[in-house]
């Protein structure tokens, strides 16, 4: 079943100042969207709102006409947070519900190989390169099989090789039918893999 994320009359304010106001927004699972906007336009804030990490000042956000629940929409930080543990332990901390211990370890192995990190499994996560960190963050989220992925400037500060590996992962998510929303402050290699474009400008969201 394909999920649908909808929002009405979303508005975000900080200290009484309006950052953006969005009349209506629909995002269907399977759609890939490139969110563009200059630094400070509120992309990160919008993505955190859409993933349920922060409450908007006003407005309603529904997933399949119900309240948003954790694990369906996963927000990934621009600079992924690496817990001070080994790579594999960064995966083990994910709360996968209703899965046996064995199935869980299986899934972790699968995620490591999906992200191309098997050979780094026992390395300390904080010693990974930027591209590897991004991939570990994606592997971590992948364990929960989110329907919607919100990737915040995933290609910022990555070299071309790392971007290529990232694109491969995102394509694989698209094939699995996930919804992808990725942001950047400029047009990048990643914008080519999205069929839609949202532009955040002067507090308004424009759809293309």
């Amino acid at each position, binding site marked *: 079943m394909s999920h649908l994320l909808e929002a009405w009359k979303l508005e975000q304010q900080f200290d009484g100042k309006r950052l953006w106001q969005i009349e209506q927004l629909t995002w269907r699972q399977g759609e890939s969207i490139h969110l563009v906007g200059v630094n400070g336009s509120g992309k990160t804030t919008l993505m955190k709102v859409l*993933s349920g*990490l922060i409450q908007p000042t006003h407005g309603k956000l529904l997933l399949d006409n119900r309240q948003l629940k954790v694990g369906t929409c996963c927000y990934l930080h621009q600079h992924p947070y690496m817990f*001070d543990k080994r790579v594999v332990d960064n995966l083990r901390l*994910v709360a996968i519900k209703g899965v046996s211990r064995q199935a869980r370890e299986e899934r972790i192995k699968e995620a490591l190989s999906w992200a191309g990190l098997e050979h780094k499994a026992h390395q300390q996560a904080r010693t990974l390169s930027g591209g590897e960190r991004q991939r570990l963050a994606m592997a971590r989220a992948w364990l929960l099989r989110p329907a919607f992925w919100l990737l915040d400037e995933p290609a910022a500060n990555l070299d071309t090789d790392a971007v290529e590996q990232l694109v491969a992962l995102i394509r694989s998510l698209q094939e699995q039918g996930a919804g992808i929303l990725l942001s950047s402050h400029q047009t990048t290699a990643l914008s080519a893999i999205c069929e839609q474009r949202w532009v955040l400008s002067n507090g308004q969201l424009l759809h293309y």
Partner: protein
Amino acid sequence: MVSFRVSLTALFISLPLALLAGFALSFWRFPGHWIVVTLNNTLLAIPTVVIGLILVLLLSRSGPFGDLRLLFTQPAMIIGQILICFPLLVAMLHAAYQGVSRHAWETARSLGCSRLYTLWLITLEVRFAVLAAVVMAFGRIVAEVGCAMMVGGNIAGYTRTITTSIALETTKGEYVQGIALGIVLLTLALVLNVIVGVSRGRSIQSVTQ
């Protein structure tokens, strides 16, 4: 030993609450935040004899909690030591948790971790600072004399701690006995700090490997 039993009990009772409080102070911006921090820092500065005095007033026969008959018992000493180490733990843990990015909270929460489990994960992120806080707090209460003497009463075999017996031996002129006990405390402090140092050294090694 009385010293260890009393101080470890006080420490283990204070620690969970102090972890929660320190965490709340660094990850939760609530109105009156600064008042709590200021209050805690003030409590931190109160001399232990004053805490002893307040407890004696509260627990003595004629005081409001006199009926509990707690004065000159180990529970009274434990209460005193909790009051002494709690603000110190809160201050140190607050500082420790501030070293953790808010992103850690957001990451764990969006990966489906419960609030309590996230708290635990973040505590592990600053495990050495937490360990240092615990050692510091333990050191403070095990070495404390004023409050222990006043609310415990220095009863041999029951409420006599290492420090209160040092005080007693010294007034009796038994300096050698006092010095011996002092060496015990000093050794304890050394051992604890070596443990903190070694575990921290290990972790640095494992990261640079």
